[in-house]
C-alpha cells in the first residue's frame, strides 16, 4: 500500500468557524499527483510571457536610452542617453496631453452611455437579458477599422448629419464634423464602449435586487436608492470599466488618423510615425516608455483613490 496522502491545501479562513460556516472542507487535489505538475503546466505559458512580454519591456527600456544619432539603417549604440526622455517630452508634450484629454472625454462619455445600457440590461431587460448582452459583444465581430471607416461616412461633410446640423444652425455653412476633436472623441467612445459595458454589467448583475427594494422600503427615493445603494455597489465595475476604456483609448491612433486631422494627432500617431516613417527608434522607445510610465502612475493613483485594489 502506498501511503501518499493527497496534498490538501487549506486557506486559514477556509476553516471557517463562523456562525453560518460549514465544516472545513479543503479541496482534494484531483490532478495533484506530483509536486512538479504545476510547474510543468505553467512552464510553457510562463516562458512565453517572459520571453515575449517581459524581455521586450527590457528591450524597450534599452532602446529608449539609445544614442539618438543612430538610425535603423546604421544601427544604434547603447549610450544611456536619458536626455531622450527630455527631448521627446519637449517635442511631443502636446499630443501626449491631447491623448489623455481625448481618452478622458471618451471615458466619461462611455461611462454615461455604458451605465445606462448595463443598468437596462441587468434590471429592465427581463427575459431579453442574454440577448442584449450578446448584442453588446457582437460589434467586436466586425473589423475595428471597418467600423471606424463607417463613422467617416456617417460624419461625412455632405452626409445627412452634417446637413441637418447646418440646417438648424448648430454648424455653420462651412462647418464640418470630420477632422474635429468631436469626431475623434466620438470614434473613441464608440469603439471602446463594450469595454465599459461588460465590467459594469458584471458588477451590477451581482447586486441583490432586494437591497435596492430594501432601500425603497426604508424611505429612500429612487434617486437616493440609486446614489446610496446601486452606485456604490457597482463601483468595482466603474473602476474596471474606466480603466479598460481609458488605457487603450489613450494609446489609440486609428480614430485620430481616420476621423481627425493632423491637429488631432494623438501620441499613438507620433510613436507609430517615429517607428515606421522616420526610423527614429530611440525617440519612439522613449515616448512609448513615457506613455507607459504616466499611465502606470495614473492607474495606481486612481485605484488608490477609488479604494478598490482587488480588481479583476
Amino acid at each position: 500500500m502506498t501511503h501518499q496522502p493527497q496534498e490538501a491545501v487549506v486557506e486559514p479562513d477556509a476553516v471557517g468557524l463562523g456562525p453560518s460556516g460549514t465544516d472545513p472542507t479543503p479541496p482534494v487535489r484531483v490532478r495533484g499527483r506530483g509536486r512538479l505538475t504545476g510547474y510543468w503546466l505553467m512552464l510553457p505559458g510562463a516562458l512565453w510571457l517572459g520571453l515575449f512580454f517581459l524581455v521586450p519591456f527590457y528591450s524597450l527600456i534599452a532602446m529608449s536610452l539609445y544614442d539618438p544619432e543612430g538610425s535603423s539603417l546604421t544601427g544604434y549604440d547603447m549610450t544611456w542617453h536619458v536626455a531622450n526622455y527630455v527631448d521627446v517630452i519637449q517635442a511631443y508634450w502636446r499630443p501626449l496631453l491631447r491623448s489623455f484629454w481625448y481618452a478622458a472625454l471618451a471615458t466619461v462619455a462611455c461611462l454615461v452611455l455604458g451605465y445606462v445600457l448595463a443598468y437596462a440590461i441587468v434590471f429592465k431587460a427581463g427575459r431579453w437579458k442574454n440577448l442584449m448582452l450578446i448584442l453588446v459583444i457582437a460589434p467586436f465581430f466586425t473589423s475595428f477599422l471597418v467600423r471606424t471607416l463607417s463613422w467617416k461616412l456617417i460624419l461625412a461633410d455632405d452626409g445627412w448629419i452634417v446637413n441637418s446640423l447646418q440646417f438648424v444652425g448648430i454648424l455653420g455653412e462651412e462647418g464640418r464634423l470630420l477632422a474635429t476633436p468631436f469626431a475623434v472623441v466620438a470614434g473613441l467612445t464608440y469603439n471602446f464602449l463594450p469595454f465599459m459595458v461588460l465590467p459594469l454589467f458584471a458588477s451590477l448583475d451581482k447586486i441583490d435586487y432586494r437591497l435596492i427594494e430594501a432601500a425603497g422600503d426604508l424611505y429612500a427615493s429612487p434617486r437616493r436608492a440609486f446614489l446610496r445603494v446601486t452606485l456604490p455597489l457597482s463601483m468595482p465595475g466603474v473602476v474596471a470599466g474606466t480603466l479598460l476604456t481609458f488605457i487603450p483609448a489613450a494609446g489609440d491612433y486609428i480614430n485620430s488618423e481616420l476621423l481627425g486631422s493632423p491637429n488631432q494627432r494623438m501620441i499613438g500617431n507620433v510613436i507609430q510615425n517615429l517607428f515606421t516613417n522616420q526610423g527614429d527608434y530611440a525617440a519612439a522607445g522613449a515616448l512609448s516608455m513615457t506613455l507607459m510610465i504616466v499611465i502606470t502612475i495614473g492607474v495606481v493613483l486612481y485605484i488608490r483613490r477609488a479604494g478598490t485594489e482587488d480588481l479583476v
Partner: protein
Amino acid sequence: MSLVADDHETAQGRSGSGRDLRLTAVTKSYGTFTAVKSLDLVVPEGSFFALLGPSGCGKTTTLRMVAGLDVPTSGTIALGDREITYDKPYKRPVNTVFQNYALFPHLSIAENVAFGLKRRGVKDTKAKVAEMLELVELGEQGAKKPFQLSGGQQQRVALARALINNPEVLLLDEPLGALDLKLRRGMQIELKRIQTEVGLTFVHVTHDQEEAMTMADTVAVMNAGVIEQMGAPEALYDNPESTFVANFLGQSNLLAGDILGPDGDVVKVSIQGTTVSIPSDRSHADGTRGWVGIRPEKVMIAEVGGEIDAPGNRFEGGVVSDVSFVGVSTQYLVRMPWGQELMVFEQNTGRRPIFAVGTPVDLSWRPEYAFLLDASQDASAGVEDGDD
C-alpha cells in the same frame, strides 16, 4: 421507562460481525487547527448511524475521511478486516450523497446514475439504472438534465447514483439541508424506508437534531472534533452526559447545586437550599459542585401551595415571566427567587387555565428525570443561537 439500559451498548453491542466500519484514533489537523481529535468509532453493519453536531464540529471532515476525500493525519479507518485509511476514493466500497448533490450538469439523469457502474466496467447498465430510478420514483426523468429537476428530485438522483453501486457504507452529508421543511420531513421517512429496504450501512451527517433522532438508530453527538456522547436517540435525550449534549439535543434547565454526596442509589444535591436527589446512574459529576439538569417538559408547575404530582421537593417563590402558547402546549418562563429563569413546557390538557404573566407559582419534578453534570462545563455550551 428504561432508558439507561442500553446506553453505550447500541454501537458496540452488535459489532463483531464482518463488515463494521471502524475508526481508530483518527485525527485530522490543518496546520494548527485540529478538526477531528483522536476519534474512535464503530458503526455496526446495517445500522443507520447519525453524526450530529454544529457547524465546524468535525463531522463532515470525519465523513470525508471515510469517503477517502481527506486523509487522516493519524489513525486508521477499516471496513471489516480491510484497512482503507489511505485508499483512493475510487478504491473503496463507499459512496457519498453530497450536500449539494454534486450531480454532473453535463450528463443526463440516467448517465449520472450509471456513472459508477460504467467506471467499474459494467457493460449493460440500462436495466439497473431503470430499476434504481424506479426505487426513487423518478422512472420518467432519466433523459433530463439535472438542472431540469427540482431540489427534491435532484436529491433522489444523488441517492440513486450512490445506491446503484451497492456500497458497503453509504455516506450522507447533510443530504436534506437544501430542501424546505415539508420536503425534508417527507425525505426523512423515505430515506429510512430505503435504508430498511436495502439494508446498507448509512452514515448520516447532520446538524439537525430532530432529523438525527427520527432517522438514526445510533446518534453520535460531535463537538469541537470529539464525540461527546453516543447512543440511541432516547438515551441521549434522557440522560445527557455533558452540558453540550443537554443543550444541543433539545433544551435543558441547568441549575447550579452543591453535591452533598451519595445516599443509597441516589446522589443528594442542594439547590438554593432545597435538596433534590438524582439517580446514581444519571450522575456525571464528581467534586462538590454540579449542574442539575431537567428537561422543560419534565418540570411541573402549580399555583402557590397547589398540588403537584411529584414526590420530589418543591421550588417555591417562582413568578411567571413569559408565556408562549403553542397550541398543543404552553411554554412558560418562570423567574426563581435567585434570579434564574427556568423553562417549563406544559401540555394543554385543559385541567386548569393557563397561568398569566406575573402569577406566583411553585415548580417540581420527578427525581428520576433529573441528571447531574460536571460543574466545570459551560452551562450554555451547545445552546443554539437562533440559526436553524
